[in-house]
């Protein structure tokens, strides 16, 4: 087991990306994740990679597309409004079949919103803010260690599916400090070795048998566009089976089942203890993969459960998926704060008890 060191979230995320073998980073400053480009500007070139500060998030996502289409293992990060600017690129990159690891240290919106933590990017992340049919696997860590592990796991997933993978953290996790064990570094693939790993990449045709490679998104012939889209969804069907991750806690005998991810899941753990002290058994489903969403986890809910409560830092976005998971079997309620406010575990407990009372 590697030694644990105390690190600030954003710096740990950046270090994890280097250790994951990401040789290329393109970013634009935005709170609350600016420590990531700062860290990588200091570290990445020293360790055999390339850092470039982009003139905008539009440029950053397209630099990432270029480097990844040319075979590089690429990591980018931003926060909510910056991720919004990257959506055109994400749609394009999905259709072009190019791997990429994206980190969103999300803040609250809409619009410029604020710089405090938020989870109202759930729709943007899981439904896609870009045009057309595409999907992006999204993973939501609830600790710095889990974020590090997910960032480390992301590039091989992105490579396997030739599709972006997103880690959705929130501003709280970017800014807090926790002890973390770093994984063993993977090497950065050398340019001359890329054709062997990624024979589809545009590296100059001399590197792949003088047969030209084209990375494209335009299909003017409807039949070809339909085929490309359906091929993407063959990959997504596999991803929907292979990438589901969640944590379930105390579902067998819970009266209340919370559903929460990220920072909110941390405080719900405390709420479950507080409710236990008050004589009410509660459990939790914590989706780690937001897409694919762990719908099957809801089949584990036991017969004593009276209500499922989605706890979110949004006006209720994940709750749509929660309803699909519950499928009409139980009432589904929402506890939430927005604007950058995070409820305390006591507030969640009191609201949950009021909901339970209201059902009687």
């Amino acid at each position, binding site marked *: 087991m590697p030694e644990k060191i105390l690190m600030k979230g954003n710096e740990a995320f950046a270090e994890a990306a280097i250790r994951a073998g990401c040789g*290329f980073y393109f970013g634009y400053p935005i709170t609350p994740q600016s420590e990531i480009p700062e860290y990588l500007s200091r570290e990445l070139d020293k360790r055999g990679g390339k850092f470039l500060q982009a003139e905008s998030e539009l*440029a950053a996502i397209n630099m990432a597309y*270029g480097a990844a289409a040319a075979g590089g293992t690429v990591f980018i990060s931003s926060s909510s409004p910056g991720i919004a600017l990257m959506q055109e690129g994400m749609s394009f990159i999905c259709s*072009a079949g190019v791997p990429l690891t994206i980190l969103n240290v999300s803040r609250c919106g809409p619009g410029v919103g604020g710089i405090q933590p938020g989870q109202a990017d759930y729709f943007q992340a899981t439904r896609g803010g870009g045009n057309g049919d595409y999907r992006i696997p999204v993973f939501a860590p609830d600790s710095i260690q889990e974020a590090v592990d997910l960032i480390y796991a992301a590039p091989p997933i992105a490579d396997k599916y030739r599709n972006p993978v997103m880690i959705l953290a929130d501003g709280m996790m970017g800014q807090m400090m926790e002890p973390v064990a770093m994984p063993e570094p993977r090497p950065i693939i050398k340019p001359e070795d890329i054709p062997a790993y990624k024979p589809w990449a545009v590296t*100059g*045709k001399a590197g792949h048998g003088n047969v030209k490679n084209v*990375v494209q998104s335009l299909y003017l012939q409807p039949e070809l566009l339909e085929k490309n889209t359906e091929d993407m969804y063959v990959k997504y069907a596999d991803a929907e089976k292979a990438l589901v991750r969640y944590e379930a806690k105390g579902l067998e005998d819970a009266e209340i089942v919370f559903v929460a991810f990220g920072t909110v899941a941390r405080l719900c753990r405390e709420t479950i203890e507080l409710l236990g002290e008050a004589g009410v058994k509660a459990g939790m489903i914590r989706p780690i993969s937001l897409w694919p969403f762990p719908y099957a986890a809801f089949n584990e809910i036991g017969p004593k459960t009276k209500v499922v409560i989605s706890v979110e830092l949004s006006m209720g976005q994940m709750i749509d998926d929660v309803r699909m998971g519950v499928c009409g079997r139980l009432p589904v309620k929402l506890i939430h704060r927005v604007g950058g406010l995070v409820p305390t575990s006591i507030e969640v407990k009191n609201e949950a008890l009021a909901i339970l009372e209201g059902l009687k």
Partner: protein
Amino acid sequence: MKPVFTITEGMLPVSTSYCPGCTHGVAHRIIMEVLDEMGKLGDAIGVAPIGCSIVAHKFMNVDMLETAHGRAPAVASGIRRAQPDKVIFTYQGDGDLASIGMGEIIHAANRGETFTTFFINNAIYGMTGGQMAPTTLVGQKSTTCVEGRDPMKVGMPVKMCELIANLPRAVFVERVALNTPAHIRQAKKAVRRALEVQEQRLGFSFVEFLSSCPTNWGLNGPEAAKFVEEQMIPYYPLGNLRTPEEVAK
């Protein structure tokens, strides 16, 4: 017997989809001829824009990728990081480069990115059907300025070479035309020098081609060539605005 004419390996043996009288095909060919002559077809990575020439990869026989509208210089900047030893170029029209992609081209030029941009200026949006471009001439009619471009409403046509040449790390900047054999020969020389500048990693290199769009100008081929000569060249003067000493011959 000595062959007097061969087709460059840089162009695939297919007909292009460009309109009769359009000079995209000429620009494609001279770029590919130079890469062929330099022995670089196997090492080249081309970046196609949004516009008529998004399909350039169907004709240019090198590795290529398509990009979102205007973002080619950002994409090429990314490619350069991952492929430090390759020949990288963007091929962009005036709507792509001088309108929606103005930010990306200026910043890539300012960074002195070591790829080459080939800029096709035909003073109009071709693929979408003849709307006003940033480079549409004063008084020139288009489907979004049917009375002709009014500079009091939309400003003057943008002179990209002059803008780019203001940036110290844009070390090679030249404007050429494709409307006469003499101009095409000059254009090919500019392409070669731009790629030599890239080869030596001296900084950013930029070649603007005054091109023609007979379909959307409402002219036939010879009239379009005359339009370039009589209307475009007086406003967009041909010539080299900047050459580094290393390739100045």
